[in-house]
């Protein structure tokens, strides 16, 4: 027991230590990419309206023409101290973007992830349990279609059907304009804020706005989960312990759910965890499609405005989030499966 604890502690420390250079490389890459890309916020806003000389003067006044090493040193220094800066174009702190727009992405991602699990796991289990039957074919086909269909295409179709044609659901935004104004934003997670405020009309407004983007994004992720659950279930169904369970006369339903399914979940947890990390950054297309005011949409807006302080701040947070989540997943796996531990 003592030996196992030491090994796990070493693994945890090693994994955390490896995260530091990973984040450093990511920060450097983000910085370099943003400086290599042409344009700057001033020419994006005023180009074509003032002379190149005037633009150069303004760039100088804003400090955009400082030596790149000086800018890099400032950036890394600020990043180390947790100061990701203020956007060049609209003077917002990166912190406020994270609290206002990051929470929108988090809310969408969590709900989409719940939908992905709610759809992906049962369909995957059914497909695995009834292998090579019409249920299996249907489940696999569904998984392939929802995964292969581009999110903007699925989203657009959903907008046309449930928004334009049927008029059931709003097609854009996180909440109606008036609710947006009147809502007391304690956590900036609107489902929670409306519950805290006890404003059920606003809660329902939030739910209505969430349905289309969350279902669209959730279905996309469910495609991966369906295939993953199915394949792993089929693998575990071949295990000796499953045969043994059957030999003991346990019902097929119990064999699948209590023996095969639980073991099939181990790799699913790993991939699902990583999917969630990717979801935080990968919700951009969904946010763009549904005008969802998440951090991905803001990233695109700042990219268009060449606001590299904003872009590098947001990407830095994304990068750190992905690294941290992958570390957490590795640690969870290490707890679950001793074979992945070092030493």
């Amino acid at each position, binding site marked *: 027991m003592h030996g196992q604890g030491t090994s796990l502690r070493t693994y945890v420390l090693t994994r955390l230590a490896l995260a530091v250079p990973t984040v450093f490389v990511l920060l450097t890459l983000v910085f370099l990419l943003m400086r290599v890309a042409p344009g700057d916020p001033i020419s994006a806003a005023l180009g*074509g309206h003032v002379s190149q000389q005037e633009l150069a003067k303004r760039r100088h006044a804003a400090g955009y023409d400082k030596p790149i090493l000086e800018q890099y040193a400032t950036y890394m220094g600020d990043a180390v101290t947790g100061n990701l800066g203020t956007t060049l174009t609209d003077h917002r702190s990166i912190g406020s973007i994270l609290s206002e727009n990051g929470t929108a992405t988090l809310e969408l991602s969590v709900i989409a992830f719940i939908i992905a699990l709610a759809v992906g796991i049962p369909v995957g289990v059914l497909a695995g349990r009834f292998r090579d039957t019409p249920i299996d074919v249907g489940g696999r086909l569904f998984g392939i279609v929802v995964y292969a269909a581009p999110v903007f295409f699925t989203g657009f179709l959903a907008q046309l059907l449930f928004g334009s044609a049927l008029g*059931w659901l709003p097609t*854009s935004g996180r909440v109606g304009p008036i609710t947006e104004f009147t809502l007391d934003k304690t956590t900036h997670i609107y489902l929670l804020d409306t519950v805290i405020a006890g404003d059920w009309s606003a809660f329902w407004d939030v739910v209505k706005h969430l349905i289309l983007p969350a279902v669209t994004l959730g279905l996309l992720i469910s495609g991966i989960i369906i295939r993953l659950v199915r394949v792993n279930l089929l693998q575990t169904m071949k295990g000796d312990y499953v045969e043994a369970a059957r030999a003991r006369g346990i019902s097929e339903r119990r064999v699948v759910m209590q023996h095969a399914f639980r073991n099939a979940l181990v790799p699913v947890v790993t991939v699902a965890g990583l999917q969630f990390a990717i979801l935080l950054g990968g919700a951009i297309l969904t946010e763009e499609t549904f005008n969802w005011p998440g951090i991905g949409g803001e990233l695109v*807006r700042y990219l268009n405005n060449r606001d590299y302080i904003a872009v590098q701040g947001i990407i830095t947070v994304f990068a750190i989030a992905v690294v941290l989540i992958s570390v957490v997943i590795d640690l969870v796996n290490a707890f679950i499966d001793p074979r992945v531990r070092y030493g």
Partner: protein
Amino acid sequence: MNRRVVGIATLAASAALVVAGCGSSGGSTSSGGGGGTIIRGTIDQPISYDPAGVYDLPSWDGIVNVYQTLLTIPPGGNKPEPDAAQSCDFTNPTTYKCTLKSGNVFSDGSALDSKDVKFSFDRNVKINDPQGAASLLADMKSISAPDKQTVVFNLKKPDATWPFLMTVQSFAIVPADGSNAYPADKLQPSADVVGSGHYTVAQYEPGQQTVFQRNTKYTGSDPAKNDTAIVQYFDKPSALKLAVEQGDVDVGYRSFSPTDLKDLRSSDGVSVVGGAGTEIRYLVFNQKLMAGDTDAQKLAIRQAVAQTIDRAAIAKNVYDGTVTPLYSMVPQGLQFATTAFKDTYGAGPNVAAAKKALADAGVKTPVDLELWYTPSHYGAGSADEYAEIQHQLEDSGLFNVTLKSTEWNQYDEAALTDKYPEFQFGWYPDYPDANDYTAYFFAKNSFLNDGYSNPQMDKLLAQEVATTNDTERAKIFDQIQKISAQDVPTIPIWQGGQVAAVRDGVTGVQDTFDSAYLFRLWVISKG
């Protein structure tokens, strides 16, 4: 997770969809606010509501609703009229004196006097924000406030555009003292702005919405016709269009593609209203790079292109009639605008005249042209517009056109630093005066860096800015526009009207469509 849990989750999701289908109202306007709330949807996002930090249309659209300027372009007008000022006049060619109205107050109840005006201009120059418009005040030597109601500008040289500059939203008046005084050396946060205009900013969430509420202390003669105006931001025109169709917003402005407008015209409960606009698109020739062995040949090529382009076909085929052909860089609706290109070359294309001009100058045909455009910055129609121009020029048999494009981030710098021989550009007004559409383009060493120089033009430009006599200015601008049509440093292509999609029951939108190019929320009402 067992089957029961999965089943419950699936049922819950299904139930949510069904109930949503039964209960959704779709429109936010029905969820509260009543007739006193107007919701405008737009893809234009402001960068700041501090006048000292802005030089862009979306920010000006917010500022015009919150602050007063000394002078303003009234709805439907095209000349400066008093706003916070009672009167403004030149007392000599380099001294401009304004007397303030008595009783002006900011929305926090503090008095607005000459000290605030002086502070606002001095602050603008001092901050000199990289995204601000302090450069427009280059002619201001100093500003003084001899008494509470008087402001005097001392100019470095005579400047007839000064009254128009007093209408620019970047020079709106901000409080100098009191609990809401603006800092003298940095920008005020947009959520904390205070002005003396029609509204206060009740909420500002970048990328999401700005909520304007009626300023109960507004002392002007035309108070807001609504209590609250919400400006909701969208990323894409398609999302804005859906929001208008669903009734989530009352007014959609800006911007829609011609296809979107066509769809909206046939949508239930939506009408498309239009009005005058002063945004223009034009073609620039870099005379250092363009085809032609001599200046005379280059001139002939430019004139031949001007004679071959069919503006009416562009307006109809590409923009479905939402823009109008432009025959001078000074758009119709502005004082002193003429139709110089139509007068010189005719309204439609004249290929025979173009052929003769080229032949007379000894230019071999077909002439190679390399036309550059940028695909999104000036709207989604740019690619079609330049395909249409290519088609027109090549069909004449006089030109061989290569179309090239790149995104704005590279485009503007490359175009203005001698990389493109012929290129697309656009313009919206800093101030609605003909000077803003001529001096910037035709002066020697203009920002276009196109190599155009005509001493006669430079002399006329100096004369028009030095006189405030309208009759004299009209004559001078007539000559300027004639010369521009003869020299063809640029070819005006089209003038955009302002177009909005409006839900039934909403009125007044067309009243804000004029040469000032500002969206005044206070003229809109509902119900």
